[in-house]
């Protein structure tokens, strides 16, 4: 799976989690940019990503995610 495909699926996940069909994200998007993106939403995002991509993140790796770009890179690494 290439980075673009991952990005598409991640966008879908963000739209589902934040219940916004028009949400746009890019590599720089972080919790500052989305109002409902709190620590619980972070957990929901990660759970969805594990489920959609059929992967299991390491606790170390998810502790330092700063933005969407970091998340996509982590998924690329794990897939």
């Amino acid at each position, binding site marked *: 799976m290439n980075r673009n495909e991952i990005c598409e699926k991640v966008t879908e996940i963000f739209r589902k989690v934040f219940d916004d069909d028009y949400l746009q994200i890019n590599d720089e998007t972080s919790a500052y940019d989305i109002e409902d993106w709190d*620590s619980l939403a972070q957990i929901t995002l990660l759970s969805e990503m594990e489920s959609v991509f059929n992967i299991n993140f390491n*606790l170390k790796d*998810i502790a330092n995610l700063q933005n969407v770009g970091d998340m996509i890179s982590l998924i690329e690494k794990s897939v």
Partner: protein
Amino acid sequence: MLNFLELKKISKCRKSYSNNLIILSDSASQFLSTAISGYFENEHIDIQVVDTDYNQIDLQILDENSILYESKTKYVVIYMSSEMLYYEYAKSINKSTFFEKVMDKILLYWNKLQKNTNIKIIQFDFLPFDDFVYGNLSFKVKESFFSQINLLNKQVYENASNYGNVFIYKFSSLQNDFGRKNIFDYKMYAMAKLTITQEYLPFVAKGVTDIVKASLGKIKKCIICDLDNTLWGGIIGDDGIDGIELGELGIGQVYVKLQIWLKLLKERGILLAVCSKNNLETAQEPFIKHPDMVLKLDDFVMFVANWDDKASNIKYIQKVLNIGMDSMVFIDDNPFERNLVRTSIPDITVPELPEDPSQYLDYLQQLNLFETINYSENDKARTKQYQEEVGRVNLEKQFTNYDDYLLSLNMTAKMCSFDSYSTPRISQLSQRSNQFNLRTIRLTESDVEHISNDSTYVSKYFTLKDKFGDYGLISYFVLKKLGNVFFIENWLMSCRVLKRGMEEYIINKLFDLARVNSIYKIIGEYIPSNKNSMVKDIYKKLGFKETSSCCFELEVDKYINKKTFVKDEE
């Protein structure tokens, strides 16, 4: 099963409701609360789900001003996680009696909460996980965590049996089916103290919802079964007795297992009925002649086999049994038939069986269709009682005059005071009766005990027999003494005995009681629900005066005894 994000979306559009279900947990419960809220909305349960702060169980319970003690709090969920328990266990000095200390704490919670007499407690049981400190010997070592959790769960179940208002959600059953690996994710626990994975939250939410539904009387009483490819493989009309698949080997044993389960349900008190597109004799033949049939003809309360459409047949079955369409389940292997019935009869539950018959049983069991909050020995007799009723329906067809039919039944009844023997059945009747129910007040066994012991109440139950059989306990009333007035706090009756003169018999007895107690006036009230419109005018019909909308009264010396064919039992 809806997934977590769907439940989250649904819960966002909830109205706010005046009755509360409060969640107490020692782990992070926000997601659990969202999931239950979404499930309630989906199941039309008008109760507000209220989450409380992290790990505040003690604080909330010991605080007299807590929302827990307000009258609008109807349910309290207590979820104590095995994770938190493990930390406490590891720290404790006397590990072999650790479980006793935990049980004492839980009993303290239950006892304190009962100060709010409305409350129903839903206690999660503990997930047994093995830390392998003692390997496979852990069962033999009392101090092992494995032993302690099992001892704790055993005590929780035993103690819950003594509390009429405590219900156990068997969280451990979920772990049996799906495993700790699926239900628990260490990362989520480390990051946010969440103890249930998002994927399995909906299952937990369903479990809690099932219990709440049962306590609201939303239960299933009957399962209607198709025959061909549902109770056996193949088509009896085409394949004949020797051709249908039913037996120990191959696909046949799938259907044997399903029949065994249905038979157990029948023994528990769930009614079985058949609705099949077949000639009657052809459809009945396997039950009489096939050596591997587990179910027999007399396991069914009704056996409908003809070439009419199934929706009409199901409506006929419902009419004869006289139970709500929403208390029925219909199973059929054919998606076309399932959709037809679902569309014509929106209230009936039609499980969407998987394509592979070997998965039917697992699928049906997981739906947990037959949740209940009480069970009494009487339940076992239910099929026989409904079969007797079908006998009465057939007898009635022989009379042109209804009074002659009633006289021919030789009905006798008895009035008794509430006692410990009848308590389970009284509670159950209060949960199951919807139509002839004046104020729809659901009573747990604890509630019934309170009323029996309270001298400001006069409460009686009624049993009825006729020449076909014994109906058992079919009605009760609870009278509140207010000076020289009786207020009928509730009166309900099983719909199996409607319009046979039992209403008149009971009211005659009520006024007899009033005279004995020097009562001057009796007041009754009708609280409308969406199922009890049949009793809207019953007090008026029995001679009461309407004093305001839904309130009725009658002075005792103005009462005239009503005619009835029901006689006192010798």
